């Protein structure tokens, strides 16, 4: 067959530029060397993880085992459990730890209770347009400064402030105000994971439950809630750990109350006792580790 007859066939003519492999020696090397691909991909994030998480945490742990010479205020780098002994023996630390845990639990319970119906409405009831608007509405407060939001609550809760006008009266500055403010600030972090896991529940599951005879309340309890557990747990971990570590809100609307964060702040700053601050900072870390292990045991994260 001559070249001309082949070329006259429709669809047989080919532009030589489209033929043959694309010459990229680097890509070819990468394609062959799986370990090279992996290490190129992961080296930067791994280095970052190592530096930020592992090294910083190790430094914290080591610092908490040092002590401060009470005369010279110099850090004494010999190993000692004195800081942890202080935490256990001194009643102040126990009280503050329990108070912090209580606030964190209250904030988490309130947030989950508010987030569930909002997330359900967003994911299953609202039209796509309303849903988009609500997602934006939930996300927008995250752009506003944390301090501005807390000070706004200070104004709302102040004597003669907005809360007084409503007729309910203001709780005044104190732990209640801390719970209210923190519940407000961390709410988006609870709504979003619950919303995300609700969106993954197909509508047909809810219809099927209704079809099999379950009234709406029972559908929620027996089908929706169990499927939402991973989302609820994720949201609860956010609000709980963020509240555990907060110290600014307490300063602004908490009155004279102190939380663990305040103790860390005071000891690392004014009291000039960095080792004790490090030891106090270990408390929320240990609490979260215990909690996460417990949650894992229940199998709540299996469907994540």
């Amino acid at each position: 067959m001559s070249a001309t007859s082949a070329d006259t066939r429709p669809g047989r003519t080919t532009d030589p530029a489209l033929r043959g492999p694309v010459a990229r020696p680097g890509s070819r090397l990468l394609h062959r060397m799986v370990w090279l691909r992996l290490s190129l991909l992961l080296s930067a994030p791994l280095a970052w993880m190592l530096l930020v998480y592992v090294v910083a945490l190790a430094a914290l742990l080591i610092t908490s085992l040092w002590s401060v010479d009470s005369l010279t205020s110099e850090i004494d780098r010999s190993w000692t459990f004195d800081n942890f002994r202080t935490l256990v023996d001194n009643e102040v630390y126990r009280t503050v730890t329990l108070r912090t845990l209580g606030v964190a639990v209250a904030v988490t319970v309130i947030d989950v209770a508010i987030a569930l119906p909002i997330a359900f409405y967003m994911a299953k009831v609202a039209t796509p347009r309303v849903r988009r608007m609500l997602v934006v509405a939930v996300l927008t407060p995250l752009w506003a400064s944390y301090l501005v939001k807390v000070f706004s609550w200070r104004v709302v809760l102040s004597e003669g402030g907005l809360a007084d006008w409503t007729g309910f009266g203001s709780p005044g500055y104190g732990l209640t105000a801390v719970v209210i403010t923190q519940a407000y600030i961390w709410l988006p972090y609870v709504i979003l994971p619950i919303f995300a896991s609700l969106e993954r529940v197909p509508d047909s599951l809810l219809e099927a439950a209704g079809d099999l005879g379950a009234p709406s309340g029972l559908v929620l309890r027996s089908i929706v809630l169990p499927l939402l557990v991973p989302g609820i747990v994720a949201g609860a971990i956010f609000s709980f750990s963020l509240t555990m570590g907060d110290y600014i809100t307490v300063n602004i609307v908490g009155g004279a109350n102190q939380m663990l964060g305040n103790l860390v702040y005071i000891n690392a700053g004014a009291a000039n006792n960095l080792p004790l601050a490090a030891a106090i900072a270990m408390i929320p870390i240990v609490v979260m580790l215990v909690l996460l292990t417990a949650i894992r045991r229940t199998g709540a994260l299996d469907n994540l």
Partner: protein
Amino acid sequence: MSLPTSAPAETATPGGAADHPAISLRGLRKTYGDVVAVDHVDLDIADGEFFSMLGPSGSGKTTVLRLIAGFEQATAGTVELGGSDVTRSAPFERDVHTVFQDYALFPHMSVLDNVAYGLRVRGMKKAERRERARQALETVRLGHLGARRPAQLSGGQRQRVALARAIVLQPRVLLLDEPLGALDLKLREQMQVELKQLQRELGITFVFVTHDQEEALTLSDRIAVFDAGRIQQLGTPREIYENPSSAYVAGFVGTTNLFDAETSQRILGVAGEHAVRPERLRLSPGSDTETPREGEVRLDAVVVETIYLGTGNRVHLRTSDGVELVALEQSTGSLDTREHRGEDVTVRFARADVVPLSS
């Protein structure tokens, strides 16, 4: 709430099923904003019938099913089940159960708990509901998989669990929304047989939604062909296939040769649109000069393409005056009977096989 499972049907219609059709739709209409999904559907489905709703996607067949189940509220018209008006009732108040296209099995429950869910909702004791669920699973031959999670099952097995979950409640009517759509061909054919057997054994009314015309033809007692929210034709599979009422039905159910009014006049010498099924055309090689016999139409044509189907050949033809035809030839086991591209052939078919269509 504790109802015995089979009671609602019997108490709701004293006097029994014979008095009323299982399902009765009157003037049913459903609109979403400006879009009319279902328009003026009147339909009676008899007790124990295997009834199919056939149509392309968007033709309104699934919406009708959802209106019967109660997932959608009708814009106008009524839905009656066994003689009682349920137009405004919630899904959980209706004695119909649905098998969903995606099966909608509860992922956090075992297969047995899935099947027992409807019984649990009705407040049945644990031991008894487990026993009944186990029996229902036996019915669909999955008795050994009760402890598994739905995620651990194959598509065909999930399909059967969905069936068991519905039939354990002994409904009078089972609604099936493209239940075989997600299965591969082999499994699908097997499930078709099982569905048909199950329906016959249990005597339940099946309302089956499908876009697969072959599936509808093989399974159903009666078929409603849907288009644009309306029923285009209602009849037995034979009626639908042999005597399609419109060009739409003829084209959707099986392949067909459609003659528009002008072509009908020229070729057949009659007015109006007509259709001939491809398997009614007979081909013979070479052009034929004999005068056609009484009651026979004869055309000269050229083979455009021959497609081997395994069971036979599909031959695409063009007549001398430019009409496109399709013929189906059954394989007879003889050697190569294939017509070749460009070959002249004579096409014959009986006038009796020409179906007049109302446009």
